[in-house]
């Protein structure tokens, strides 16, 4: 069989079901990507100075204690052996126990990931409609006062580093006018409403940080569509401004908006360690940083894999949605 003939059934399949084939190809690619991520994390952690034994013991390391820990964890084995052992366990769904605490990695990550998703979900719930809405408004009042105000405020918010935004909010809403809950620590047995209340400030911070990016992309994408001929037709028909934008322009500008929303969602889940630290919020980011600090490899690997999966999944969803949103891509000729 020639290589060409090997691909023939797949080519036929992809002609018949282009969307499904696209998803399948991307899924396969994702697994390769995930595997590459594990290799890179492994090598990355290895390249850091000091291994788990020496960093965990810190200044109080003695040669015997280091040797004890190394042999207990198999750190004296060659790199490849360790990687293959880890990969074998991970493929069968066993992420092992944290070296530092001896606790099950999956169990601990479960909680932390839940917290991260909780925070990200509510931040997105506010940020996405708000930024898209503001984007639409900005287009409607293009180059007029509302547009300028929206632009200046959102650009100001995105220009400030996230920790600074966090500290500002703390200063105003915690220290000067004590209205918000601080620290934002959530824990087991906290009821839903209290939980929501305590994440108010980190959610506000995250919304301010991601708002401008999505808002400006919405604005730019729609403005581009607005310049096309059919928009002029719609205008000449006598439709009012906002209706044109929402009904006729927005659907055709969806693809880039979906993309930037997906990127920001990914950021909200995996990139918010600074916000977690500032608001003392027990999310995944802090967990991974703690683990990297002591080279707790099983935890670092598991966190890395989850982060990578989230990124890949969100990007893939964005691409698929973009295809679905575009009839020309949905039915290629």
């Amino acid at each position, binding site marked *: 069989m020639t290589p060409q003939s090997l691909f023939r059934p797949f080519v036929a399949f992809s002609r018949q079901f282009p969307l499904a084939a696209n998803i399948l190809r991307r899924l396969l690619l994702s697994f390769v990507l995930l595997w590459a991520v594990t290799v890179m994390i492994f090598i990355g952690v290895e390249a*850091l*100075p*000091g291994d788990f034994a*020496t*960093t*965990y013991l*810190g*200044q*109080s*390391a*003695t*040669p015997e*204690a280091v040797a*004890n*820990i190394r042999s207990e964890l198999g750190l004296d084995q060659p790199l490849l052996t360790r990687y293959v052992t880890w990969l074998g366990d991970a493929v069968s769904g066993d992420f092992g126990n*944290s070296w*530092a*605490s*001896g*606790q099950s990695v999956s169990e*601990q990550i479960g*909680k*932390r990931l839940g917290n991260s998703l909780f925070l990200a979900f509510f931040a997105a719930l506010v940020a996405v409609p708000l930024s898209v809405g503001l984007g639409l408004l900005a287009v409607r009042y293009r180059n007029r006062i509302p547009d300028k105000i929206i632009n200046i405020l959102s650009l100001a918010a995105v220009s400030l580093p996230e920790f600074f935004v966090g*500290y500002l909010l*703390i*200063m105003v809403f*915690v*220290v000067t006018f*004590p209205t918000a*809950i*601080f*620290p934002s*620590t959530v*824990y*087991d*047995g906290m009821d839903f409403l209290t939980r929501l209340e305590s994440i108010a400030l980190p959610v506000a911070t995250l919304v301010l940080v991601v708002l401008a990016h999505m808002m400006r992309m919405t604005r730019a994408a729609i403005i581009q569509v607005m310049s096309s001929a059919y928009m002029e037709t719609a205008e000449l028909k006598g439709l009012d401004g906002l209706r044109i934008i929402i009904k006729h322009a927005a659907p055709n500008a969806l693809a880039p908006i979906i993309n930037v929303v997906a990127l920001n969602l990914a950021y909200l889940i995996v990139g918010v360690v600074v916000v977690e*630290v*500032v*608001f*003392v919020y*027990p999310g995944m980011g*802090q*967990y991974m940083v*703690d*683990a990297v*600090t*002591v080279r*707790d490899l099983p*935890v670092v690997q598991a966190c890395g894999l989850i982060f990578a999966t989230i990124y890949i999944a969100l990007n893939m969803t964005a691409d698929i949605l973009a295809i679905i949103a575009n009839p020309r891509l949905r039915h290629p000729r």
Partner: protein
Amino acid sequence: MTKRPSIDPILPNSLSRRQFLGATAAAGFAMTASGLIVPNSAMAAETPKKGGNLKLGIKGGAATDVLDPAAAAGTVSFLCNHLWGDKIVESDPETGAPLPGLAESWESSADASVWTFKIRKDVAFHDGSKMTVADLVATLKRHTDEKSKSGALGLLRSIKTVEDKAGDLVITLSEGNADLPLLLTDYHLMVQPNGGYDDPNAAIGTGAFTLKSYEPGIRATFEKNKNDWRDDRGHVDSVEVIVMNDNTARIAALSSRQVHFINFVEPKTIKLLERAPHVDILQTHAKGFYSFQMFCDTAPFDNNDLRLAMKYAIDRQEILDRIVGGYGSLGNDYPVNSTYQMAPDDIEQRMYDPEKAAFHYKKSGHDGPVLLRTSDAAFPGAVDAAVLYQEHAKKAGINIEVKREPADGYWSNVWNVKPFSATYWGGRPTQDLRYATSYLSSADWNDSRFKRDDFDKLLLEARAELDNDKRKALYRQMAVMVRDEGGSIIPVFNDFLNASAKSMKGFVHDIGNDLSNGQIASRVWLDA
């Protein structure tokens, strides 16, 4: 200028020049912050109020923490263990002398090698079971087992046997050690049922509080132990320990009255925090110090004149003022200060003296730059301190080349490996341990490669000496040796800097360790 009462219990009666300097530095602080520090004596006069939920915002916790006291690392673990656990021996907050804990009394053989502890009979663990001598024996065995990963293993190496003899705890040492009771005050040595062999992370002990919930790196909650064997502690109903590693978050939480107490206040933010009307700054003299260590056996530091030149070439006062914001005391190139029992109190304070430095430098015959490795992993501000030192030494004609090393791996690749590097040392319960940890010839962590048979002999002699006056004289001799011939440049001892809401009363400044020697929660009360 008024005397600062909270310092008094810490300073011995006779004020040496060195301590005087420390006290004046502290008094300078007192002038700007007068009234912020509630004197211990005044607090003792008030009757503690009962009840309330004490909230502590603490730096020094991670998702990798465990409750096993043997593996306690980091401030949060240290604190949590002191909430649920008790040690066999406690120490006096003011003098550091051993006090009865779970052992009500003890005596030793004449050569200090066999110790008999009488154990309290009226104590129960949180799970209701009665505490017996067997539990204490098992606890010590778990921590002294050769394969033990306990942080106390190093302290207890000289323990040969631990036995239950007719209801008493009997410890036999391989050599006399007059400090054994103090060794048992180590924070890893929490007494657990069956020594913690069954479940080291159970957090079941005899302490003033019982663990209610624990999420490592996030939060721990405790409730008052209703059957506490001591009635002079545990005034609050419940305690919440919240891990807050961000400095600004801790300050914000205290300023907005969300927590009653925060630890590790940065010297540079103290002045700002003082302005908050409801906040007390809590400054406690401590045993830890910042230092630059030279290898006495490696060129060019194998020449004592060069070492002396380096010691005279540092302006300690400026390091004290600039690096720790004045919240500390001057170091004198030996690793002990007035917070240790039987500390020498009449050794002249070494001061910045570029002329003397230049004299010794010339005499040493060394020429060319001296490479000093530093990193902020060594201590906060270590890079700045090295650069200041570089400037000080320049005036003596000594060229220090400062090399900044990565913080990652600093402790394994630079410290105790390279011949001249910055480091931090935390306190040890006794002078004996302080010297044995890093000045004994055979010590693993001899980070100045100070190897002297005569010094080792003095150390062993002092260890077995039961007469405190004689011991004090021996320790003075040792301090002078390290100061004048050793490889340690110790510019400052840094204080513990904490802050509390004014509604939190009864904080005891304990020279043993930070956070009132870990016992803050059982000592303070809330004045609502």
